[in-house]
């Protein structure tokens, strides 16, 4: 917490800030509330009466009951977590390496590699999926009965897909890092690998947390890749499972709202867990130590 922030009484400027921040908070909180209240409504009410809170006769647990009865939700959560956590960790590890090298080292072709990374952010999945699918099919990791292989086949392209974003963001943070600390460590006899893990990573922990959150989120929500790689029902991840449930004509919006609610929960847990790393004062502590 910023000590300097706690001076005297709240000023007018601060009041205005709070009002403004709260107004924005309402706009971001409301859709979540909207989704959750509609998850407890009958599908017929959502289009006609979606902005009220369901009480008494209007409230129903049917949507959740339907989802839980028909589907193996826990199994799908498990598959989702395996895929997305793998993607998250591999991306953090390798993107961190790459970003570090692209910031600290000077070498020929660096600019070219950087452009490649930027380009990688923009390849639409729709234009890369077919070659990727054929390749993985020739390796025999898609279209199998093995759940482990299918989950891996989902994770691999997602790792690549999130890599550029992670590298770009990490470059931004590592660039702002003062080099003095690394020099100090070097003088103490650390090699570059040690410097990276003992100095750079701890100092940029918040940025790794940020990258981790978004990587997890995008991997988790990526329905398109899953459509190609997860075939059999016991391989389905949660987004695939609930997407399948809520698709089709005569869309069942009540079911959709409950599905969205079920999908959001793990992401929120992950965010809240990682959020504690996005706090102030780490650099200061490191400098002292």
């Amino acid at each position, binding site marked *: 917490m910023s000590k300097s922030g706690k001076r005297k009484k709240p000023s007018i400027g601060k009041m205005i800030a709070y009002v403004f921040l709260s107004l924005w908070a309402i706009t971001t909180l409301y859709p979540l509330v909207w989704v959750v209240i509609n998850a407890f409504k009958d599908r017929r009410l959502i289009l006609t009466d979606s902005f009220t809170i369901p009480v008494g006769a209007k409230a129903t647990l049917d949507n959740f009951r339907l989802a839980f009865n028909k589907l193996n939700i826990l199994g799908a959560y498990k598959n989702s*977590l395996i895929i997305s*956590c793998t993607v998250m960790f591999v991306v953090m590890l390798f993107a961190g390496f790459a970003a570090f090298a692209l910031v600290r080292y000077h070498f020929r072709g660096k600019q070219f590699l950087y452009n490649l990374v930027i380009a990688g952010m923009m390849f639409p999945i729709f234009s890369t999926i077919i070659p990727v699918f054929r390749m993985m*099919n020739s390796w025999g990791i898609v279209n199998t009965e093995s759940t482990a292989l299918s989950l891996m086949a989902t994770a691999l392209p997602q790792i690549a897909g999130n890599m550029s974003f992670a590298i770009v963001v990490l470059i931004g943070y590592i660039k702002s890092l003062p080099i003095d600390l690394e020099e100090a460590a070097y003088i103490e006899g650390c090699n570059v690998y040690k410097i990276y893990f003992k100095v750079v990573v701890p100092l940029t922990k918040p940025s790794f947390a940020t990258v981790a959150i978004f990587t997890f989120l995008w991997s988790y929500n990526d329905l398109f890749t899953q459509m190609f790689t997860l*075939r059999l029902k016991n391989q389905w991840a949660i987004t695939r499972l609930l997407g399948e449930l809520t*698709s*089709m004509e*005569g*869309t069942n919006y009540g079911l959709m709202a409950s599905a969205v609610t079920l999908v959001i929960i793990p992401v929120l847990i*992950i965010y809240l867990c990682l959020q504690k790393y996005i706090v102030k004062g780490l650099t200061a502590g490191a400098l002292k130590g």
Partner: protein
Amino acid sequence: MKKVISIMLVLVLTFSLAACGKDKNNAKNTSTSTDKTETTETTDKTETTTPEEPKKPVSINVTTTYAGNDGNAQNFQDAVKAWEKETGNKVNDSSATSDETFKARVLADFEAGAEPDVLFFFNGVDSNTLIEGNKVVSIDEIRAEYPDYASNMKDAMMGASPVDGKNYSVPVNGYWEGMFVNKTVIEAAGVKMPDATTTWDEFLDICQKIKDAGFTPIAASLATVPHYWFEYSIYNFSETGKHNTLAKEVSDKQGEAWFNGLSDIKDLYEKGFFPDNTLTGTDDDTVQAFIEGKSAFLIDGSWKVGGIEGLTDKVDDFTVTYVPGKNARKSTDIIGGLSSGYYITRKAWDDPDKRAAAVDFITYMTRDELVSQFAQYSATALKNGVTVDESQLSSLAQEGIKMAAGATSMTGALQDLIPTECRVPVFDGMPNLVSGTVDIKDAIQQVLDLLAAR
């Protein structure tokens, strides 16, 4: 708070990892145990029923569109289980909801040599590459070896391939297109309910009266789903039974029919019979307005019966009837057919282990009994027709059966002959046509050019 949550996460993770490890064992266990039951089942069978050579249990890969919220998803899964139990074979079901991604996945599978053994897929132009590439086996070829294959179906209705006119797939449940009516609007506007005898001019009259009474006569999103109006208004100008033939040029008979049909839609639009937001709203929006009693008519497919049942408590307020006819077309000449069916892939056919299992699976899934259960109020190709317990159905579904039964002819949809990319000028371009920014004849010419360029 933070701690609690992180502990929760750790728990979830360990649980999932443990479950993962356990699951692998489980999977192994279950697979061995199913193997066991399978073998016992087959031995049972050899002892009791089949005196022929004992069959090895086979596992076949099946891809269908019976998934998600499809009304028959559950029926399909039950039927698969029953078949597995009966034969001892195993089905790897990779069904998914039919959408653009699904189509791409199926085509990519065939391209990569990863196709399923049995496929339930469209029989219109979407299947052309499968037939051109000799990836699926024709019914004739199957019958050379299994003479009784699909013998309960009318050959003429099975949905011949646009490529060579031969049958490749065995259909289950089809569709018809009809005009759904919100009766409350008809009553409130005090107009006559359209029926089998209503003519086009009478229909225009009714629409005008409904409009004068302050309602929207026709619910349609011309921006997103002009398909049904496209079909019927063109059918109004083509010869009965010759509706689904393609025009060669704008000035030939079919080309004229297209022009006159599309001009009729423009006419309806100019008369203000469509919703105000027909060029900007989605289909969901306009259907919702129909359900809420803001508009009177909705042309849609038989699947909308289930859709309407799901959207309203008062399904008795709705009915379905014929789309009023014009010229040679009687109102009772309707559009419908069977747009998908079961294929056996070349890969499965050439695999001696799988051939019999695939044939047996399809034969099982297309028995009269199962087809009736799947089809209910929609069209089928069964020689004996469906047997449905009507008392289980809503009034709307019963009206649907009645309407389909009273039809004097049923013709396939014209659009099934036109690949998606060639429909663009008249489908996605419909708002341009009705608002007059693009000339109708130019648009038809564009479609024909696209068709010719293929």
